[in-house]
């Protein structure tokens, strides 16, 4: 166990930091039209230096580096105000799926622009009737000559409103059991017949979308993997999700420590309240445990092992802690805590924001309950849930709401 950098790692870190100092300064000196323009220009800058997708092979524009190098760069980059989330899903999940299943011409067309931030990708899996049960997808694709004609609806599609392309999982066969009649395609999100509507979240934001398909034509050449074999392709995407999603962001132990120092409670500053101190210790233990668990995953990766479903624990802890810690801070503010105006609040309302975003984080990318099933079944080897729909033809399955 060695939590220090090796000499090579230290040299890599020093080079990354030097590059960041110069380049963030140059980047910030440019007047960008908006946040998206700034994000794209920063991504292009990183790509040119080999710092976008550090672990991808150089022939695809990556850095040809190791998982540890990727972590080191991420740690250093996090110290600068250049956190743009627009490319995470595309580069973390969609493009790797394209790289695994598309032909060379398609890969040459799309990988570079995605890497440089010129084009953004979305993942179109979830549906109104297929959230936790993703394979219950009803959006239908019917073959028509060299095209497929798609009708149906996707939902919870992060960033679709600013994305250019997507990968979409659709039902191509209703006579087979639900996992066996699915097919994956890539598609242009500006194709005729596609309507993207933002979802108004309970938090007030609109990061997710509904996408309606009305007779959308997708050429068969845009298929990823074999017809009716889309579930296998989706598993590759979802495996990459475990690496791309989870952790980071939002209110943490350090933020609430800062609040507790300046907040006057009944008997002096909140930080002197023994009950508060006990809870703070637990939040810190969880946050540290999570950070070091992620580093154990990276160690496994760097030894050539594939990270398994055990990384599911990250999101369970992070999302629940965000909600709990955020609410503790809000309640500590007493009557004032009901205010949700960044201008009037510590840390621009970070804690109120945690309370309002916590519920979504506990659901997105696998609910707490589904993740616990995954741990129980795939890590601990306990029996799967009883599935009444496993062998029946999709068209014969009962449907509720």
């Amino acid at each position, binding site marked *: 166990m*060695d939590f220090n950098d090796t000499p090579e790692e230290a040299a890599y870190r020093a080079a990354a930091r030097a590059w960041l100092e110069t380049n963030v300064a140059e980047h910030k000196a440019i007047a960008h039209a908006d946040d998206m323009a700034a994000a794209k220009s920063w991504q292009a800058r990183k790509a040119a230096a080999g710092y976008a997708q550090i672990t991808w092979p150089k022939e695809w524009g990556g850095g040809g580096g190791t998982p540890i190098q990727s972590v080191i760069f991420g740690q250093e980059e996090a110290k600068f105000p250049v956190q743009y989330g627009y490319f995470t899903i595309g580069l973390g999940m969609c493009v790797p799926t394209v790289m695994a299943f598309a032909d060379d011409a398609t890969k040459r067309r799309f990988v570079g622009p995605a890497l440089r931030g010129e084009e953004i990708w979305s993942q179109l899996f979830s549906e109104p009737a297929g959230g936790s049960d993703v394979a219950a997808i009803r959006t239908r694709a019917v073959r028509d000559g060299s095209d497929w004609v798609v009708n149906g609806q996707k939902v919870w599609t992060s960033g679709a409103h600013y994305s250019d392309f997507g990968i979409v999982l659709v039902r191509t066969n209703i006579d087979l059991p639900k996992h066996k009649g699915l097919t994956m395609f890539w598609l242009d999100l500006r194709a005729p017949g596609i309507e993207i509507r933002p979802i108004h979240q309970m938090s007030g934001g609109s990061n997710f979308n509904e996408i309606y398909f009305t007779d959308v034509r997708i050429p068969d050449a845009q298929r990823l993997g074999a017809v009716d074999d889309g579930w296998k392709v989706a598993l590759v995407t979802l495996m990459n999700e475990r690496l791309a999603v989870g952790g980071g962001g939002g209110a943490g132990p350090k933020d609430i420590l800062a609040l507790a120092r300046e907040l006057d409670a009944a008997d002096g500053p909140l930080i002197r309240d*023994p009950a508060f101190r006990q809870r703070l210790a*637990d939040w810190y233990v969880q946050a*540290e*445990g999570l950070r070091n668990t992620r*580093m154990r995953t990276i160690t496994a990766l760097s*030894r050539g092992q594939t990270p398994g479903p055990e990384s599911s624990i990250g999101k369970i802890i992070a999302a629940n802690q965000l909600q709990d810690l955020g609410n503790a801070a809000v309640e500590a503010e007493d009557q004032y805590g009901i205010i949700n105006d960044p201008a009037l609040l510590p840390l621009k309302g970070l804690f109120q924001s945690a309370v309002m975003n916590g519920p979504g984080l506990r659901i997105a990318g696998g609910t707490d309950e589904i993740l616990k099933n995954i*741990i129980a079944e795939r890590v601990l080897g*306990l029996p799967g849930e009883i599935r009444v729909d496993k062998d029946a033809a999709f068209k014969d399955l009962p449907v509720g709401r």
Partner: protein
Amino acid sequence: MNFDYSDEQKMLKEEARRFLAAKCDASVVRGVLDDPARGYDETLWRAVAEQGWLGAAIPEGYGGLGLGHVELCALAEELGRACAPIPFASTVYFVAEALMLFGAEAQKQKWLPRIAAGECIGAFATSEGKGPVTARSIRTTASGGTLSGEKIPVTDGDVADLIVVLAKDGLYLVEKGAGVSAETLKTLDPTRSAARLIFDAAPAERLGDEDGIAAMQAVFDRAAVLLAFEQLGGADRCLDMAKAYALDRYAFGRQIAGYQAIKHKLADIYVKNEIARSNAYYGAWALNTAAAELPLAAATARVAASDAFWFASKENIQTHGGIGFTWEADPHLYYRRSRQLSLVAGAPATWRERLVSQLETRNAA
């Protein structure tokens, strides 16, 4: 950066697991549980000494194996998994560590080789009554080469040859013999011995020149990391037991392991154990490299491991249902041990407080 045991350490750990599976099954633990006259299992103690484990982290110059503390952590994890009924923690994590931290050369020369050889059992005597040990709670005093006072409870105090005693002004070495009387106590975990020790002008030798509470805390920081690995091993064993039982037990026509109420309970145990493991690894690194982060890392490891073992041990009983509440079933061995390990170096609440003070110091505004 490397956040895992090395291949050699993994091999050592696997060997230790095989060794303990052969030498320390539940009947060995029960041998001590069911016989109030026995403080520990002498056969296992000798076998462990022959393996060299007592001196794993003691330098070769003092008769040890001269491995690192990460190796000792690996052994601790397996001893915890086996619920070993021997005074390993008292002797190695507390007394040997105290000697290596504060011992004068002559003291180290005298005691470390005997500890490594299994010829000396140690005990670390700090508590004098209910509540956390503080400067105010210590009444034991030393003067003119003798020490007087009462310590309760002292884990392994009745079987120890060498006792490191916290007096008002610092730590002292006291040998079993004149001026020392021991009364064995009934505890929540009879597989580990504990005593009330009364010192009546017992010959005592100063250990180091640190202030009392600071010296105790420095020893606790080191022991906390090693105890965290024992707790982790115990917690993982509880998860294994709960899983095996849930897979074997049928109710309402199927395995109880197939019910979400049980699956989610076991997933919760797994999550806590993994958080405890990650924090313990960080603590092992801090201990092994004498990093400045040790006090914070030790507190973090201890709180996570205490929480994980308590949760795993109680939910293991719950998963077993009625049979889990019987003397004959093994889950209570781990439930008892989880109480012993959570309290022996100060309770979790005390460590949470220490964690936050460390955090305040580090993030001084």
